[in-house]
């Protein structure tokens, strides 16, 4: 059964074509003001990669903050439901999922059946989210993909006190001017993000099995630092964490 899941996120849009639990193809593009016209090519590209005809799909589910732009979808599902579903399928024992996306951190609590029994989003301040990390990394000229590599060379962590993504940029610049090595600043940034994620995650009990999804979960340094401060058992999400919602959507397409 070939199903398509599409997640129009706040910063990135993802499409995944799945056959059961196998990913046949996936693609991630930036969500811009133009996303409306870029969706169709994105879907076509994924279909082409997988060698499946756009019109031969067994199901198509949309999700994400821009989901209503997906006019062809069979139905739309809430992001929370999709992520939880994906987590449930790949990590049946997980009780807590923390999604660290572009603009928000969402913690979800799952019961034995993998249903969301409670969830919580971060407050009005975007600090700690992916965008925060991006802005900071930009200021340093280190692409997000290379954060781990940089941080691994750090001798210490520069302490970062701004929690605001906008101000942190100038704080980073100050550190650079003071001659702090970039890798130490990067390590400090990861620590700053990890602290914010930790307080979000710890709100939901501490002793459970947990996993991370979303873009920032790709940054191992951050994940490790959060795990250090958590008390439960960490179970890594086995796929690209950024795809979690899209994968969940594709899997849900199969159930209906």
């Amino acid at each position, binding site marked *: 059964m070939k199903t398509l899941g599409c997640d129009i996120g706040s910063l990135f849009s993802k499409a995944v074509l799945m056959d059961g639990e196998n990913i046949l193809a996936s693609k991630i593009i930036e969500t811009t003001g133009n996303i409306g016209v870029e969706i169709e090519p994105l879907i076509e590209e994924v279909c082409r990669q997988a060698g499946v005809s756009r019109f031969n799909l067994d199901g198509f589910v949309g999700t994400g903050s821009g989901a209503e732009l997906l006019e062809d979808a069979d139905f739309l599902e809430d992001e929370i439901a999709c992520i939880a579903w994906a987590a449930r399928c790949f990590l049946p024992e997980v009780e807590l999922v923390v999604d660290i996306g572009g603009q928000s951190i969402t913690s979800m609590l799952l019961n034995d059946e993998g249903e969301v029994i409670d969830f919580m989003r971060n*407050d009005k301040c975007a600090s700690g989210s992916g965008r925060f990390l991006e802005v900071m990394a930009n200021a340093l000229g280190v692409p997000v993909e290379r954060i781990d590599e940089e941080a691994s060379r750090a001798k210490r962590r520069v*302490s970062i*006190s701004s929690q605001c993504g906008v*101000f942190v940029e100038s704080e980073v610049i100050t550190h650079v001017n003071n001659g702090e090595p970039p890798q130490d600043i990067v390590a400090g940034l990861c620590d700053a993000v990890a602290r914010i994620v930790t*307080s979000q995650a710890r709100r939901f009990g501490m002793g459970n099995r947990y996993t991370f999804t979303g873009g920032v979960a790709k940054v191992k340094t951050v994940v490790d630092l959060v795990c250090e*401060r958590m008390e439960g058992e960490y179970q890594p999400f086995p796929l690209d964490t950024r795809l979690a919602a899209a994968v969940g959507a594709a899997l849900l397409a199969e159930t209906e």
Partner: protein
Amino acid sequence: MEDPAELAGDILNTHLEEWRRGGGRIVGYTCVATPREIMDAAGILPYRIRALGKPERELADAHLSRFNCGFCRACLQLGLEGTYDFLDGLVENNGCDHLRGMFEDWVYAKRPGFFHYLRVPHIVSEVSLEFFAEELELFREALGRHFQVEITDASLKEAMERNNRTRESLRELFSLREGERPALTGRQALAVILLESSLPPAAFEEYLARFLEKSRGNEVKGYRARLLLAGSATDELELVGEIENVGGLVVCDALCYGTRAFWNLPRLAGDPIHALAEAYLKHLLCPRMFDDYHTRLDYILRAAERAKAEGAVLVYNKFCDLHGVENVRLRMDLEEAGIPVLVLEKEYGSGADLGRIRTRIQAFLERIGG
């Protein structure tokens, strides 16, 4: 001798460690409405909980929120991460809403060995004084029961005498700031207060005597203006240091970690518990009290007058309801009395805020022509 700010810069100092090694007990409290004498009389070291401007919050923020006072969040963080594990117990007060929350979270997450809730009324009246005296009696019993010591009136009196003696010395030290030639900085003064509630009484008494000796005849030079500092929980040595770095010498204060903590001495005659109740409740110079704003205003005006302060900085932690509102009125009244005022709302212990604090202090000094 060691600079007080150096010694006070750590939560746990060598004297405390020694005290503990010798089998000494330590009980933590936060609010100045807690009569230290009762603990002292039981041979317990009363330690005033502080956060020293530490910025970490992540464990605390799983309980408290972004809308809570940063001081409370920082204290809770230290509690949860184990920095305060050396305490044998905690005393909670209904000081302010944020503190109440902090203690509740602390106790929820970590059961302290000894925990006592000391209820402090918000108004002064015959009825409330009677109640508070009863509360102190209950506190004495609870301490005695848990730590298996008898706190007699005699030992209480002894502790009161000792405390009064130290406070007299503290007064003397603080008056050295107020004169024409200030003998110590505000940062040092704050540090001394922090030491008072984090050293064994004997060690502090000795330290204070030496420091007092050294300070007489000392003169701080090179400042631009004499300032009064008043406001909410400020145990941040760095903040006062920053104010003084740009040239505003803090010559007097009305801070909770400052003169407010020791200005009033209990009388030694009569029933000790009643004397303590009166001293601690009647002279609780904190906006958590109601109906006595003018007492607080007078206290500040008198301090400013004594020390010839050229300006007043009213500082408060963001989200502090009590001081946030109180400062609005204080500002109006002080300005009317001819004292220029800077109201400094700040994030507790955030290094990122320091640059902005500097700018505001500097502009204020420029404004008052310092």
